[in-house]
């Protein structure tokens, strides 16, 4: 005989704390049944309720003259001006993590991550036009790392390529801190007409609720599946909880959803993401201040004998829930049939304020919607100031040329060609800059216009680790800088806050301080947060990941002929370094890769200076004075000079005009800096204009020959450097 647990025991097993469970008992005035408990447990999970972070997320600036829709909906929306026919255009974007699933099953975990974030975007009426991914893997020597890299990259490509959305940018790090928890943060950017945006709130009672997409299976139901209404643990084979992605179904779903929206039949719509049918139905009815009934017998099912609990908690992929306008069911069925999708009217909106589920003729759940959202737990978790690194007291010396070689072939800095060549970067025929281009951001045209979107994702986890507040600022500032460096006006960001266990005060301290820093940077740079995602508990055996608040950012280029990259340097052009170099080497790539030291305060970020320098560089781009632009980040000036030289196929001779020692000048990671190429004839003018604007600027080199030279310190052939830079990842992956 099986052992039967009490509901209270199940509550604990599914992650509800005793006091959370008590709130449920108080609100209901009775014990919930198993299905109801399941609904509470997912709605009040960290993932759905943001209970540990909500309080702090409020610090982000979320409004601005370009913001159409900030956090709270499926994705954020910004105004990008008018299209050719005078229609108002909007850009819809969001970033989301699929860290844990990617560690368990890298291919499917990453693939379904891409699928999930696309649904958040097209559910609002936008056609996805670009994908990005920010990846963090364990150290290369860790036995699991290679398999995870292989699977994650194949999964991202396998999904995005098939759906037909270009993957245009991303970032990839390796660090032992991610050995037990890889991070897969996927971002999707879409385009919509600003007056044809769709939201999830149910507008009125008496409307049909339509399920469409793939059938529901037992995918992703947490833990030991509660396979029967009795909740007995029988000896049934433990089902895999891995969700499998079907990118072909997603492609059909995109087309069907956009066609359904265009037909005018949709009153409200919501994708089924994490917690599937539960969160989608609860949110649609709850946000609309209405009630909803669902007849679970009508749900298209892939497997036999699915229980109500399983249907409500299934995380089967590629599914949508729509509320149609009165009498528009036939439009729906015509479109679903055309695209070969399963569909059924499974319920109706009403004024009850309850969610009522029936299954096999019985009411299996009857919950007031209010408590599900209003009474969701909100924690002001105790936190302490996180550890920070003291300023450096020593900087070991190394020969500059050797150090550069070491840096260029280090896992973090080596070319990621091996991975991004597995991504279709050109489908849709609007990609103007991608991972291969030699530009600081991906650039895609707004189809049929002269406008283009610039997109980037950035964070420097080692800085955040060394000082969460400065590191948080830096992540936002670097994203802003990358958009600036391609000539875009930065508009807004999405974010993905990846941290360890928030119940540990030091980790909570990292979260709080990183958010403080990010919020400050967003305020000063007028760079609001319009969407985001939080991933906590990235921790194995008490070892937390380095704090990794990934920033995904979008900027606008009004006329894409004015875009710029760093692949356009020409022989004879002069290189001007914008921004001041004090010689910041704390927590630098130079220290870590050349000397094995992970120490020192990260470079401070002066946000006013960021703005000043960035605006100046953008003006040089707009006046076509700048001929190539690259921001300075990991590895400092010499690494940036390599990037420019390699992408442009011309050598660079640098000189050190400062008092700093050569290795410091070469590798310092001071912020707010750019390397700008100009014609020789305009160099003095640019310096004069910089002086006028109060921007630090100095001539540091010239494009010439086939070598990368720092006068008196290093001279290396570009070919040899490229070889070092290109060879590490393919060699590691055994390709």
């Amino acid at each position, binding site marked *: 005989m099986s052992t039967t647990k009490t509901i209270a025991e199940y509550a604990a097993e599914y992650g509800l704390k005793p006091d959370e469970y008590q709130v449920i008992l108080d609100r209901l005035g009775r014990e919930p049944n198993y299905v109801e408990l399941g609904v509470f447990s997912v709605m009040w999970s960290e993932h759905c309720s943001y209970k540990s972070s909500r309080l702090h997320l409020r610090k982000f600036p979320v409004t601005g003259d370009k913001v159409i829709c900030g956090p709270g909906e499926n994705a954020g929306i910004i105004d990008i001006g008018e299209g050719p026919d005078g229609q108002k255009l909007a850009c819809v974007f969001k970033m989301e993590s699929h860290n844990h699933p990617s560690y*368990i*099953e890298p291919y499917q975990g990453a693939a379904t991550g891409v699928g999930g974030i696309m649904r958040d975007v097209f559910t609002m009426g936008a056609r996805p036009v670009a994908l990005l991914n920010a990846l963090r893997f364990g150290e290369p020597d860790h036995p699991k790392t290679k398999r995870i890299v292989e699977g994650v990259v194949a999964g991202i490509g396998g999904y995005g390529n098939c759906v037909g959305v270009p993957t245009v940018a991303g970032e990839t790090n390796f660090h032992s801190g991610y050995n037990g928890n890889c991070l897969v943060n996927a971002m999707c950017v879409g385009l919509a007409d600003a007056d044809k945006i769709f939201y999830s709130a149910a507008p009125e009672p008496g409307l049909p609720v339509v399920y469409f997409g793939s059938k529901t*299976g037992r*995918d992703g139901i947490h833990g030991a599946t509660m396979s029967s209404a009795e909740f007995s643990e029988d000896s049934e084979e433990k*089902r*895999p909880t*891995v969700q*499998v992605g*079907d990118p*072909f179904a997603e492609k059909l779903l995109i087309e069907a959803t956009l066609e359904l929206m265009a037909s005018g039949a949709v009153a409200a719509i919501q994708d089924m993401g994490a917690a599937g049918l539960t969160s989608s139905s609860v949110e649609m009815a709850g946000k609309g201040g209405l009630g909803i009934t669902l007849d679970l017998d009508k749900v298209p099912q892939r497997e036999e004998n699915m229980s109500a609990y399983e249907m409500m908690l299934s995380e089967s992929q590629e599914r949508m829930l729509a509320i149609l306008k009165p009498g528009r069911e036939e439009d729906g069925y015509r479109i679903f049939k055309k695209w070969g999708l399963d569909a059924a009217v499974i319920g109706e909106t009403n004024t009850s304020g309850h969610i009522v589920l029936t299954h096999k003729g019985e009411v299996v759940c009857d919950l007031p919607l209010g408590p599900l959202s209003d009474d969701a737990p909100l924690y002001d978790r105790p936190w302490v100031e996180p550890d920070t690194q003291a300023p450096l007291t020593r900087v070991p010396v190394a020969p500059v040329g050797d150090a550069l070689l070491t840096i260029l072939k280090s896992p973090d800095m080596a070319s990621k060609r091996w991975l991004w060549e597995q991504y279709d970067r050109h489908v849709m025929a609007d990609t103007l800059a991608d991972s291969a281009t030699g530009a600081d951001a991906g650039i895609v045209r707004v189809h049929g216009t002269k406008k283009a979107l610039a997109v980037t994702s950035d964070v420097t986890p080692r800085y955040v680790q060394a000082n969460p507040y400065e590191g948080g600022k830096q992540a936002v500032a670097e994203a802003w800088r990358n958009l600036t460096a391609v000539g875009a006006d930065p508009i807004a960001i999405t974010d993905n806050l990846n941290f360890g266990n928030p119940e540990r005060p030091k980790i909570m301290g990292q979260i709080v301080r990183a958010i403080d820093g990010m919020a400050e940077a967003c305020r000063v740079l007028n760079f609001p947060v319009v969407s985001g995602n939080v991933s906590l508990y990235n921790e194995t055996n008490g070892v937390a990941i380095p704090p990794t608040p990934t920033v995904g950012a979008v900027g606008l280029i009004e006329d894409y002929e004015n875009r710029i990259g760093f692949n356009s340097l020409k022989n004879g052009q002069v290189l001007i370094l914008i921004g001041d170099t004090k010689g910041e080497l704390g927590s630098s790539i130079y220290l870590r890769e050349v000397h094995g030291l992970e120490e020192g305060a990260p470079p401070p970020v002066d946000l006013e200076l960021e703005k000043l320098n960035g605006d100046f560089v953008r003006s040089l781009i707009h006046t076509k004075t700048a001929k190539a632009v690259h921001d300075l980040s990991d590895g400092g000036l010499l690494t940036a000079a390599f990037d420019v030289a390699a992408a442009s196929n011309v050598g660079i001779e640098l000189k050190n005009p400062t008092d700093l020692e050569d290795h410091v000048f070469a590798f310092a990671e001071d912020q707010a800096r750019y390397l700008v190429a100009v014609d020789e004839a305009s160099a003095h003018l640019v310096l004069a204009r910089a002086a006028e604007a109060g921007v630090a600027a100095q001539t540091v080199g010239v494009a010439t020959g086939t070598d990368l030279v720092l006068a008196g310190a290093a001279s290396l052939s570009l070919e040899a450097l490229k070889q070092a830079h290109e060879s590490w990842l393919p060699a590691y992956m055994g390709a």
Partner: protein
Amino acid sequence: MTLKAKVHIFLKNGVLDVQGKAVEGALGGLGWTDVSNVRVGKVLEFDLKASDKSAAETEVKAMCEKLLANTVIESYRIEVA
């Protein structure tokens, strides 16, 4: 001795078989509507040297666990002859 091994690899029950679903749809579209429960798997055939059949089976099982199958979502069946 040299033996012939054959390994069948299928997705575990309950794991969505997107290929099977697609093939079933395509066959249906071509008029074969009487076809159901299509599952698509992989099959590997190879020769291997081993002292005897049971030693070979042990080896092949190890290969499956380590490389050939993704045991998170796939199950496998071995034949050695």
